[in-house]
């Protein structure tokens, strides 16, 4: 699958923008704050209906405007499809396929698989457990949408159960049983899927890491679960219920659900040592990169190659790694790179379609190679 063209209206600093993409490699160059990341954000937004920046969604709309629209033409072996997302302040978002209004936004999910690389990936290793859970969840739902339903169900029950914990009145045992059951049911499915995918990722990420460093590395990903996977859904659910009973007193005191996959983490161990605690900045960066590469590989195994978005990452890599990425990306899907200086992309310039981004205007600088 690749995106043939993108049209943005009143999106961020773009009044109107139309870009014809190269089917393989696209490079956006420009000074800071000109709108390079905004282009990647537009693609991400079409793919997920959300932004990857932690901001109020209204900010997606151009200053002084009340609505924005993103539209793209997707192309795969079966033909082309036009998708559009509209967002009006105060009215929410609307999704269109071939100009036809769709009933649910979630229908777009999975249509434009993508993986984003950004300098923030470092926090995948350095940051809190929430980011690692989010990473696992993104890998899982992009591979299989049914996981998203499981996850959303779990998050909804969790909200309900926390609301119940905050109620001052006496606790009705029968009501508790119900929410504990629903929570443990949905939760056990989440635990199962994450457990499985961590094993998968470990193998692939270790391979990617060795390729990146040129050394034989030993990478271990350990899923730290408050309820460990117990071989079957039923048994895991049983264990889940037991843990809930044990935690009951403390939960009621603290008024929050204390056990379940929403508290889990992934421990990253490099050659026997926790990377978060003992890794150098460089090692942490490399492992984060390996994790993202593993995501890319895993998604590519399942369906057509995902889009690859590279925001500001290339400049951080030395020549050897740039060469590695160039070789690697040849085997991947349509790629979008951003950067400030041509110098950082010497290895790419031959093949890529190059755009110059300047204060909300995008100009074509180089067509890019015709070989596919």
């Amino acid at each position, binding site marked *: 699958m690749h995106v043939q063209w993108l049209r943005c209206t009143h999106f961020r600093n773009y009044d109107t923008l139309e870009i014809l993409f190269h089917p393989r490699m696209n490079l956006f160059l420009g000074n800071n704050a000109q709108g390079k990341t905004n282009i990647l954000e537009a693609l991400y937004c079409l793919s997920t209906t959300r932004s990857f920046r932690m901001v109020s969604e209204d900010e997606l709309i151009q200053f002084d405007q009340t609505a924005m629209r993103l539209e793209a033409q997707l192309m795969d072996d079966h033909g082309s499809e036009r998708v559009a997302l509209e967002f009006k302040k105060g009215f929410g978002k609307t999704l269109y396929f071939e100009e036809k209004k769709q009933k649910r936004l979630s229908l777009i999910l999975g249509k434009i698989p993508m993986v984003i690389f950004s300098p923030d990936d470092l926090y995948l290793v350095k940051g809190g457990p929430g980011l690692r859970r989010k990473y696992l969840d993104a890998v899982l739902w992009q591979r299989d949408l049914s996981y998203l*339903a499981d996850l959303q169900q779990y998050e*909804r*029950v969790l909200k309900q159960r926390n609301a119940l914990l905050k109620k001052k009145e006496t606790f009705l045992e*029968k*009501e508790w049983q*119900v929410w504990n059951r629903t929570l443990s049911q*949905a939760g056990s499915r989440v635990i199962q899927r994450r457990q499985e995918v961590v094993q998968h990722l470990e193998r692939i990420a270790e391979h990617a890491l060795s390729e990146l460093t040129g050394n034989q590395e030993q990478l271990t990903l350990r899923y730290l679960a408050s309820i460990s996977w117990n071989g079957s859904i039923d048994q895991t659910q049983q264990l889940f219920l037991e843990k809930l009973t044990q935690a009951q007193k403390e939960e009621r005191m603290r008024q929050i659900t204390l056990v379940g996959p929403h508290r889990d983490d992934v421990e990253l161990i490099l050659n026997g040592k926790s990377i978060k605690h003992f890794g150098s900045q460089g090692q942490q960066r490399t492992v984060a990169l390996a994790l993202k590469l593993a995501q890319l590989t895993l998604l590519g195994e399942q369906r057509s190659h995902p889009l690859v978005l590279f925001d500001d990452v290339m400049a951080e890599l030395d020549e050897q790694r740039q060469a590695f990425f160039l070789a690697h990306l040849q085997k991947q899907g349509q790629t979008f790179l951003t950067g400030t200086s041509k110098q950082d992309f010497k290895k790419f310039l031959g093949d890529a379609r190059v755009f110059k981004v300047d204060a909300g205007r995008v100009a074509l600088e180089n067509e890019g190679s015709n070989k596919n």
Partner: protein
Amino acid sequence: MSEYPASFERLIFELEKLPGIGPRSAIRLAFYILKKPVEFSTSLAQALVEAKSKIHPCRNCFNLSEGALCTICQSSRRDTSLLLVVEDPSDIVAFERTHEYQGLYHVLGGVLSPLEGKGPQDLTLNALVQRLQNNSQWKEVIVATNPTVEGDSTAFYIQQQLKPFPVKVTRIARGLPSGGDVDYADESTLLKSLEGRQTL
């Protein structure tokens, strides 16, 4: 600081309380009402008051009714061994449209949802248990709450409550889109979910 005459402001104020009506729609509706002849507003106002004063929950099943019992409970042609439990009266309309289901209904008045402050005592669950206690003719209770986390939890709660009774408790199949609404489902989807029901 009101921009409109007081009575007009009041009308907007009241209209805005309706679900799905924002300030802009409220103003649009208010202007519409104003433009129409007086018969229009008299008739609308009367309909509002009349509906509110005449319609009560059915004593038996909590369906909308003008008498003590709703038309379904009054009918002698219904299968009195089957009980279909739904969230709202609008779900009954949806099942009636299938012309397939012949049993009786029970309207819960929502689902368990601590987020909205709804516990078992806020639904007609005690009345449901009463109905099973009062009569031994029931063979099957079909729980047709929406396929949501709340609907599932409520179904499980009902199953627990009905354990002492010699009835089969079933749940409609997940033919509906997850998170979907019973009363928005088309007839054939609803029929399939009814046929594919499973013992809880």
